[in-house]
């Protein structure tokens, strides 16, 4: 419980940093003023309300959603390397959005929202099937390689399309490396709803996923239908990942790191782990974003690059720890 309180405090601190860093002067006092007594003529107030607020909301949605999605994926595949980025689900959503916008000739929020979810779902199913999940033996190595291959293919298509239209390079960067900049232009409302629905479903089925992890036979004995739980998990992961990609682009490795920490905070009860994962995911993403903004001013390091720089060494560390026989 104490760990959970610390996590919440850290999140509040990270959120406050997201809103204040970059303000020329004033710090937290100015932030408090802008939130309680908004002055529409003060440029600093406007910056906080119209640029940093959407950024904060996008970070909260994406971080919490990716943390929860990673936790569900790791629980259901019993695979410590499962992450929406590594397993290609991010790439599926990005691919669908880019292709769809291109065919439709426009890129409005509703369209993006409508495309991200089927893209994420298709990629999730494809990776699970290609990684041997249908035969019931999706080992970490197989799933990882299948995800890497699928990502490579989909992102090659995305680059081909975007390189074909030079003016779109800025958009390209967004759909290949996630970012919280210009969050005000993303469909925040739709994505928040999707994330909440996905989170609700995840929390609802969490105890049954735990039963499933005891083995299918035992789970059936306890009155759980494994197929239905897996479907539920798929829907939850799709909603969460689609929401995250919709507001922040493909951000990898957050879903790899967060579940491990969440296990400590949540104490090996999946429901509590999920809540911890949401809080920790948002906290880490916001911190990473803030660090990316202040590291090389005036330029910004995209938050997707930051999470990859932090997450890739963790991936290596975890790959080393995989037992040679563990589904490898």
């Amino acid at each position, binding site marked *: 419980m104490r760990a959970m309180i610390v996590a919440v405090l850290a999140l509040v601190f990270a959120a406050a940093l997201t809103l204040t860093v970059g303000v020329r002067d004033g710090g937290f006092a100015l932030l408090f003023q802008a939130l309680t007594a908004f002055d529409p003529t003060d440029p600093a107030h406007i910056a906080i309300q119209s640029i940093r607020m959407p950024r904060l909301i996008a970070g909260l949605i994406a971080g919490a959603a990716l943390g929860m999605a990673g936790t569900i994926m790791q629980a259901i595949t019993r695979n410590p390397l499962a992450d929406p980025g590594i397993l290609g689900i991010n790439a599926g959503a990005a691919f669908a959005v880019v292709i769809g916008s291109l065919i439709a000739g426009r890129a409005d929020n509703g369209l993006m929202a409508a495309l991200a979810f089927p893209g994420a779902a298709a990629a999730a199913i494809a990776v699970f099937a290609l990684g041997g999940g249908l035969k019931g033996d999706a080992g970490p190595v197989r799933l*990882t390689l299948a995800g*890497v291959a699928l990502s490579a*293919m989909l992102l090659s298509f995305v*680059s*081909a399309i975007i390189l*074909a239209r030079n003016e779109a390079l800025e958009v390209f960067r967004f759909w290949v490396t996630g970012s919280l900049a210009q969050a005000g232009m993303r469909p925040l409302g739709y994505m928040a709803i999707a994330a909440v629905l996905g989170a609700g479903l995840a929390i609802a089925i969490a105890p049954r996923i735990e039963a499933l992890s005891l083995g299918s036979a035992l789970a059936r004995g306890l009155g759980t239908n494994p197929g239905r739980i897996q479907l539920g998990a798929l829907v939850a992961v799709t909603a969460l990942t689609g929401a995250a990609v919709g507001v922040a682009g493909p951000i990898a490795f957050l879903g790899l790191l967060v579940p491990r920490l969440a296990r400590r905070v949540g104490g090996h009860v999946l429901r509590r782990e999920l809540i911890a994962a949401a809080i920790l995911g948002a906290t880490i993403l916001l911190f990473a974003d803030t660090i990316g903004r202040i590291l090389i001013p005036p330029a910004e390091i995209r938050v997707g690059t930051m999470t*990859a720089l932090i997450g890739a060494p963790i991936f290596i560390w975890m790959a080393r720890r995989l037992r040679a026989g563990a589904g490898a």
Partner: protein
Amino acid sequence: MTSGMTRGLKGGLILAVALLVAIVLSLMIGQIRLSAFDLWNGLLTGKGPGALTLRVLRGPGIATAIGAGAALGASGAIFQILLRNPLAAPDIMGFTSGAGLAVVCGVLAGTTLPMPLLSAAGGLAAACAVAIMAIKRDGTQVPITLILVGLGIGFLTTAAHSFIVTRLPPEQAAEAQRWLTGSLAARDWGHAGQVFGCGAVLAVILAIQVRALGLLELGDDLATGLGLKSNRARLKLAGTGVLLAATGVAVAGPIPFIALMAGPLGMRITGATQPGGRILSAAVTGAIITVLADLAARSIVPGLQLPAGVMTGIFGAPYLLWLLSREMDAGDI
């Protein structure tokens, strides 16, 4: 034995013809289409559109593609034989993206060091990092851990790529992005000379080591019994493999999946079983794939030059997936 020989001969012939066809097609197709007659005329007389295409427009790029593809293919075959795993290729294990990162960093830092040197340094650094980090606590190295750790190094260098690309002004960013995808556009005879020069030296070094590779394939105990210092031999072979990959990267960028695909495809066509034959067929197959990828990249959308790496990504990734499912059925991973 004889049937194996004839199959090898037939396969070699098929590869040679395929390479020739790929080259001719690549010379003919482009923004301006040429007939075979134009090319022939240009070759004989040294005048006309055929000669211009051969000498300036498409010739150098295609020559570079052949050299880079052969170097990458040979490098892939070395690692696949050495680690006895078809997934163990320098592009999967992050060596090529390490080499690419070093080149971009060097160029941006304004060094006057030649690109192959930068590329070799980056490739070797990535390979050393992978090799060291893949050592388990009990001191052993397992191929699958090498591959996974290599993927991790690849993730890291990719993050570094995108970090660098975001810091550049838009024009340069687009250029760097193209290069890092793997591209053969606007290459001149200098590039071709470079890749063939470095490649030839490395080919000689490799030829000396082929016997050792054959012995290592028999297993460490037997190889040691036959008088081979197996660890040292393995290290030298790996070094040669990394340098070959780096040679390709220096002129073509970290173009993905060629090293992965060339070995098994070449082996399938020639039926080669000995290391020498496998490496040779991988080199020719790598050249064919690269020439065709470059051709597809610059002609699939009219009026637009895509980087060749986009094409190898689109066609190489399904191959990786197929390989994965086959390996899974065989129970190897």
